[in-house]
């Protein structure tokens, strides 16, 4: 690394501990924790059939607790959590503030140390919270019945598809209706989950307006249409004002309309699935309702359906007779189980607390500021030479924008991945787009309500500086990152060549280290 580069990079530097792999720590006989002694010294051979005893102990490391803690603390420092930065570069994910009070509440033993199969008499508190949260989400979506069983947004989409399938099956139309329709800017899971459930997927592409034409949806529907899955606004942040017409067209052929509201951040209290005519929708509690993303889960999904589809919800649902709450399994048409027990219950408690901290006016404020932040940021970003917001130039967006760096990359030869790597040196995440890249050299920003205008000004300033570097000092960008926990990767064949790939330490040792 040359000195010139070092003096031109920002002062920020992420932790770089050069941590060994856990197996390289510790030494024989070290202990991380001690356990009580068993009450007897019986040979385990008395309790395990001889052909089921493990004869060769698993090769786990042996490390003192001191070093285990230090190792994982260091790894945590090498991870750019949303608490550390204005995390608006991880768009489509609605990375917003995760209040510590909600963490303290869920650390209560009455959340942490309860068993899902306890007598319902001993779970009245948790059941009441779920029931109340259901009422909130009914009002927020306008739908009639809710389940929080899915453990994520994608599992929620899958669940809605499964309910749609059960509904068509009940009407004797399952075999006939074997197609679903979605749009390319809807989340990959809007295509992937119906495919997993056995459907043929028809994907619509946007017009210059940013959304597909009425003619396109008319051409796609038929008696084979099982349903329509769509996000709106989708990843471009453009709201399709004709959405109710799309819904009507799908309904005319007997299809079910499923609204992917994983991220409803710009629309809370503004517009609902109900008014647009949808039959179902879902929310990600880890997006819109602020439960932490947890390095990629556990999240939680809320599925919301109209009365006609309620009999098909997964079991159990929560019931209440005015005095007591219970798990209701009495649903003969239910699709059955989606997740073990009732999903990610601590996240339901967090979402409940978060909604209670806002109320109706507060939720509107969340949406309004998310949209204000997004348009304010767009105003700044579009001043950067070579960065554009494709589709409908000059119009407002809802809660996010998919930008294109094509103007920069074409002029400088610096690639969008290199630009993303350089963003790391400024302490920023950088999300391109889901695949395929319909927008060339994409980058998507979603500022949510959680960041101040100063954060947004800084962010835009950093992006402008990266663009300037790409024009004037492209080598800095090409060699980035400089201030990350690790240096630039080489030999990417390690990821796609079966002879080289190393999904575990034992595979790595076998393939790349001299045998010991």
């Amino acid at each position: 690394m040359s000195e010139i580069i070092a003096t031109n990079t920002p002062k920020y530097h992420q932790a770089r501990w050069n941590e060994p792999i856990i197996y390289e720590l510790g030494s024989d006989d070290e202990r991380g924790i001690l356990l009580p002694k068993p009450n007897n010294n019986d040979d385990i051979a008395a309790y395990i059939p001889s052909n089921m005893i493990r004869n060769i102990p698993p090769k786990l490391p042996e490390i003192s607790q001191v070093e285990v803690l230090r190792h994982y603390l260091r790894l945590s420092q090498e991870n750019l959590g949303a608490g550390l930065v204005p995390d608006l570069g991880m768009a489509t994910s609605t990375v917003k503030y995760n209040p510590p009070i909600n963490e303290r509440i869920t650390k209560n033993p009455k959340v942490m140390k309860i068993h899902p199969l306890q007598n319902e008499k001993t779970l009245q508190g948790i059941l009441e919270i779920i029931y109340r949260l259901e009422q909130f989400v009914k009002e927020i979506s306008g739908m009639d019945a809710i389940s929080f069983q899915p453990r994520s947004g994608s599992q929620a989409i899958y669940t809605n598809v499964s309910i749609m399938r059960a509904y068509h099956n009940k009407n004797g139309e399952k075999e006939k209706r074997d197609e679903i329709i979605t749009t390319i800017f809807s989340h990959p899971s809007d295509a992937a989950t119906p495919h997993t459930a056995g459907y043929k997927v028809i994907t619509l592409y946007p017009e210059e307006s940013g959304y597909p034409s009425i003619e396109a949806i008319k051409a796609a529907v038929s008696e084979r249409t099982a349903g329509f899955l769509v996000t709106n606004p989708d990843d471009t942040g453009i709201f399709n004002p004709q959405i109710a017409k799309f819904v009507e067209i799908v309904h005319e052929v007997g299809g079910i309309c499923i609204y992917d509201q994983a991220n409803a951040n710009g629309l809370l209290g503004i517009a609902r699935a109900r008014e647009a005519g949808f039959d179902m929708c879902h929310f990600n509690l880890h997006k819109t309702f602020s439960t932490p993303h947890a390095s990629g889960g556990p999240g939680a999904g809320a599925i919301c359906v109209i009365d006609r589809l309620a009999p098909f919800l997964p079991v159990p649902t929560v019931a209440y007779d005015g005095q007591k709450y219970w798990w209701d399994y009495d649903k003969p048409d239910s699709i059955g189980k989606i997740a073990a027990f009732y999903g990610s219950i601590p996240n339901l408690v967090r979402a409940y607390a978060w909604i209670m901290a806002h109320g109706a006016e507060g939720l509107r404020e969340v949406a309004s500021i998310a949209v204000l932040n997004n348009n304010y940021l767009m105003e700044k970003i579009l001043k950067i030479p070579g960065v554009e917001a494709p589709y409908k130039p000059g119009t407002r967006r809802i809660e996010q924008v998919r930008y294109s760096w094509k103007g920069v990359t074409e002029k400088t030869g610096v690639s969008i991945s290199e630009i993303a790597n350089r963003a790391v040196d400024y302490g920023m995440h950088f999300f391109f787009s889901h695949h395929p890249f319909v927008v060339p050299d994409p980058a998507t920003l979603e500022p949510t309500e959680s960041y101040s205008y100063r954060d947004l000004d800084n962010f835009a300033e950093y992006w402008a500086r990266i663009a300037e570097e790409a024009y004037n000092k492209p080598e800095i960008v090409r060699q980035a990152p400089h201030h990350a926990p690790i240096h630039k990767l080489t030999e990417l064949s390690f990821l796609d060549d079966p002879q080289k790939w190393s999904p575990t330490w034992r595979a790595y040792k076998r393939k790349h280290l001299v045998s010991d």
Partner: protein
Amino acid sequence: MSNKIVYPYIPNSTNSAKQKMMDTLGITSIDELYVAIPDSLRLNRLLNLPDPILSEFELERHVNDLLNKNISTNEVISFLGSGCYNHYVPAICDEINSRNEFLTAYSGKTYEDHGRYQALFEFQSMMADLLNMDVVALPTYDGLQAAASALRMAIDITRRNKILVSKNISPEKISKIYDFLGSHVQIKLIDFDQDTGELSLDSLSINLNREVAAIFFDNPNFFGIIERNGEEIASLAHKFDALCVVSVDPISLGILKPPADYGADIVCGDIQSLGMHMQCGGGQAGFIAVHDDPKFIMEIPLRIYGIVPTIEKGEYGFGEIAIDRTSLMSREKGKEWVGTMANLWGITAAVYLATLGKKGIIEIGKLILSNTHYAYKAITNLPNLKAKFSNNYIFREFVVDFSNTSYSVSEINNQLLKKKIFGGYNLTGQIENCDNCAVYCITEIHSEQDIDLLVNSLEEIVQ
């Protein structure tokens, strides 16, 4: 546009910030930004929600007042298991998974989120050593999804359309498998031996043929019984070129043979036992493991992290192995889907396994085994109570048959509750021929006194 409330979670909720930003945009009301949404789609009223609790202090009290209506297992002695287990959680697990850096992060890339990559690579690696297999993916939602996905993999790998599923697994898991695969795959449930509680080899043999993609069972099974015939089951499957898919709790693998060693081709399960509090089922996370065979790896729907060298000699970087197979790259052409799943629990399981280490994982297995048998002997020796099954090779759980008493399981459990004990999971109506039976779960956290109290209480109740 003036607003009475300034929200602590919303920095720009001050009037001056809003004004400044609106001025920049040349608008006089935020509503102008919603111009694309037709009036017919607008709510045009406030949501009907309860008044907010704006102060943090009152919010905490309000939620805790609700939660206080629960009884936690800190206040009683619980003998519930059946998929969610009351194991000891080392403090270091909570310390790491509460770190804001891990808790609030999402899916940053290899550079800025290096710590997540390495911690999860270590999860894959230590799980692999427990399982004696070379490939473990990042966690999925729970053990139910892991089983359903593993069976979907088997169907695609063998290009066959029928699966055999043992009846002695959790009814929830059977329901999940039906939802996930039942609409397009033939599912045949295989009986268990009514005497031993183990999967019936006769029933299996009758149903095995060259149309079968896979046979699936749990070991130990839902009754806590160690399936002794793992090897025979796997070889029977292989005789017909079908796959053997086994679900296992990794906490047992310090002392129990890993399924790969008796011929399992795909191994799956739940990692909740490895450092996750029960959280009313919120601590579940699933895993899927295979051998290092591209035919199998390319069918895994989940992310798999792998080591990649960096330009700095000796430094480890990480990336995603064979990412093109996932829905993230290929939408509906990918395998199932990838999204937010259960990574924080994967990181926690890594901390757990590193902390227990080579000796701890064996000791905990022995301790659970010893406690389980202590309770098993004492309970099944009580008058009128008996073990439901003859096979007493059990781990952590066993089935008690109450049919010789004059009480139902729920009556007994209600009596136990009065004595501050959560009795075993009631199998009545859940699994065929198991009415009046309950699954009791004993782990390393149960002392001899805890178990004696249960035994004495049961004796009092049923006499």
